[in-house]
Every structure is written in structure tokens, then in C-alpha cells.
């Protein structure tokens, strides 16, 4: 089958490539672009380890073909670091609150939490749990994941206030 031409923005950089239409976005990111932050967990749209942000939406990149993402703006966990390479707020809070054990689900958790806090900057704990329901942690470390996201919300709001 002929390859198709795709063009998209990934973590602020424009990317152009040829890809087979059946290529799933997660495979394109990891194998063609060497962006290995998004992980392959269940590969069946349950676990959320492959979550990336596409045009302001959290998406499971194992359940999207590369052609569907043609022309979009994608952010992965790599794109959530500060410009100087240091950890972004949510990443830092996951570290500080031990929001990970084995770490496999963490890129998906952080990328999803980023969008959740964009849409709802001051969530309740219940809203965090509902908003994170598409991401599974098989170490079952949910308590600290929720704590890290609540702390991220406080930190981001404090930064916003300080900037105003």
C-alpha cells in the first residue's frame, strides 16, 4: 500500500514524513519520530499510557491512525518540560509527591493531567479522579497521583496570580 504524506506539529516542531496509512499514531511518534515518552500499555484504548494532547484534547494515540492526526498540533510529555529542560510544574509535583512507582503510566498521567488542569484549574479531588479515569496505574498508586495533581493545581494557580 502506498505511503501517505503527513505533516503535523509535535512539541512545537513541524514534522513531515511518509507513513503507511495503517500506522497508529503511537507507533509513528515512538518509531518514526523517536518520541518515546508516550508508552504502549494495553494497546486497546483502556489504559491511557499512550495519552497525548492533540489540538487541546487528551487522546489515546494507540487508537488513532497517523492520517487522522495530519495537520494537528500535538504535545507529548516531552513537550511539558520548561524551555530550559527542567521539569514542568506537573512533572515536578509528580516527583515531589511520589506520584509514580514503576513510572510506566506516568507520561500518560501527566499529559492527561495537563489538559484536565487547563480545562478546570481548581478541581476538587473528586473531579480529579473523574477526569483521570481514563488512565490506569497498575501499581495502584492513585493516592499520590491525585495528591500530585491537586498540588500542581495550587502551584499553577499561585504562579498565575504572581504573574498578574
Amino acid at each position: 500500500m502506498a505511503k501517505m504524506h503527513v505533516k503535523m506539529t509535535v512539541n512545537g516542531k513541524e514534522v513531515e514524513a511518509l507513513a503507511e496509512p495503517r500506522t497508529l499514531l503511537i507507533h509513528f511518534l515512538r518509531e518514526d519520530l523517536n518520541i518515546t515518552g508516550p508508552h504502549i500499555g494495553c494497546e486497546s484504548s483502556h489504559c491511557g499510557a499512550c495519552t497525548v494532547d492533540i489540538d487541546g484534547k487528551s487522546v489515546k494515540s494507540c487508537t488513532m491512525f497517523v492520517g487522522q492526526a495530519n495537520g494537528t498540533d500535538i504535545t507529548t510529555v516531552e513537550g511539558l518540560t520548561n524551555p530550559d529542560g527542567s521539569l514542568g510544574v506537573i512533572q515536578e509535583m509528580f516527583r515531589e509527591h511520589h506520584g509514580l512507582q514503576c513510572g510506566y503510566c506516568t507520561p500518560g498521567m501527566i499529559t492527561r493531567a495537563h489538559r484536565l488542569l487547563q480545562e478546570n484549574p481548581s478541581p476538587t479531588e473528586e473531579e480529579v479522579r473523574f477526569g483521570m479515569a481514563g488512565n490506569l496505574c497498575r501499581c495502584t498508586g492513585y493516592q499520590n497521583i491525585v495528591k500530585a495533581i491537586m498540588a500542581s493545581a495550587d502551584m499553577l494557580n499561585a504562579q498565575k496570580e504572581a504573574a498578574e
Partner: protein
Amino acid sequence: MIPGAFEYHRPASVAEAAGLLSQLGDDARVLAGGHSLIPMMKLRMADLSHLVDLQDLDEMKGIKITVSSVTIGAMVTQHELIADDALAAAVPIIREAALQIADPQVRYVGTIGGNVANGDPGNDMPGLMQCLNATYEVQGTEASRMINAREFYESAYFTAREEEEILTRIHIPRPAGGTGYAYEKQKRKIGDYATAAAAVLVGGGEASVAMTNLSDTPVWSQDAGKALASGDVEGCVAAVMGAIDPADDMRGPVEFKKHVAGMILRRAIDRALSRAS
């Protein structure tokens, strides 16, 4: 899990998409959000040579609300249904149901059109659309035609839509002001299909009741609606229990599913009645 090879198409209009389907025949399938189709393609249970992505079709997007009806484009996502405050004011049961579908990531991408058109008895929107007496607009290469949701589902994955037709819009008559509503769903975990789910509208001397995942199609029972409209809750439950036909599967044996169906329906009726004014 890599799907078989296919050719990818992204038409710019419904007419172009319908033309592609008519020309490519059985080898082509349309792609909306893809959260039912892509998993089936990965398992090689859906076999196709052409994928027609509908994402650029603005004709199939947006929600229009008038005094008497609501029209929802088939490409409207569950997330957009939930976020639309005007829709929540006009037909609040839609937001209540959409919030119980899958998980946030799936709701950003999964569409109402895909949910109703696929014919999967596990999907929540078909039963809800039957409860609301919705009409589906389908478009082939000829003029579009209307099919009532209550006449759309023939058996699991078989519907009144022809292969070369695209479900473009959903038309819903607005329930009268003060109509009580509830969508109640029992599931094993987040993201699962319903073990049993019930959609109930009641008020102003009228009622409508539909059930999800308790037969190979959604179950709308006219007798159940009539009984509930006259205040006969027991008669309503009895009519529904007579109409459902659950199968034994990993969500439980038949007797368990009937038990859950009865519980879920009673909860939905209670909540709908408490909201009716």
C-alpha cells in the same frame, strides 16, 4: 496489534464521501471517532481496504437548538455534548448519559454518530435516542432520508442504514418543560459497557422508557411508557422485564442481568419522577 493495510481517504463534503462509498462498495468503511472501528481493525475482525475519514465534514458538526427540536451533527463528540450548556438546558438527559460513556480521552474523540450508527447493543446512545424518539438522517448519493431511532436497529450491528449511506444528523424533539429525566447505568468499571442501563423520561401525562445492553438491540417498550405515564410503576417494570432478552456473558448470567435491569430501571424511574414538575 497492527491492522491490515488500507487506503486512507479524507473527503471534503458529504456528497464526496457518499460518492466514495458508492464507488468502493463493501471494501470501504467510514471513520468517525474510530473508537469502535479501530480496535476491531487491530483485532483483524474488521476487514477493509478503504477508510473514509469524515473529520473534515463541517456539515456533520455542530448542535442546533430551536424551540421545538435539537439537531446534532453525527461528528459531534461526547465531550462536545457534555460541554454544551444550551443542550444541557434543552435536553439534560443527553449530558447525564454522555458522562457515563467510556472515559475522558474516549469522550474527546468518540462521536454520537458513531455511537448510534454502529449498531452495537452495548452503546448507550441508541437506547437514549429511542427514549427521546429521535430521528436519524442518512445520506447516500441520492436525497437524504429519515429513519426513526425506534425502527433503526434490526439486530446486533445490523441497522436500517444501507452500506453506502452515511448517518449525518440526529433530530430530537425537545421534551416538554418540566419533564423528569434520568439515565442510570450499572457497569463493572469505568469504560465498560453497561451490565444494564435505563433511559427514562416522565411528565405531563407522558413517559418513555428504553433499556441498553439487555438484548441484541436497544429495547424501547411502548407498554412500559404507557404504564409509567399513568403512574403505574410496577406495570412499567413488568412491561420492561417482559421485553428484555439478556444473554449470558462475562457481565453475568441471565438471572443476574434481569435483577440488575430491574434495580437500574427503578432507580431511573425514581430519579426521573423526583425531577418532574
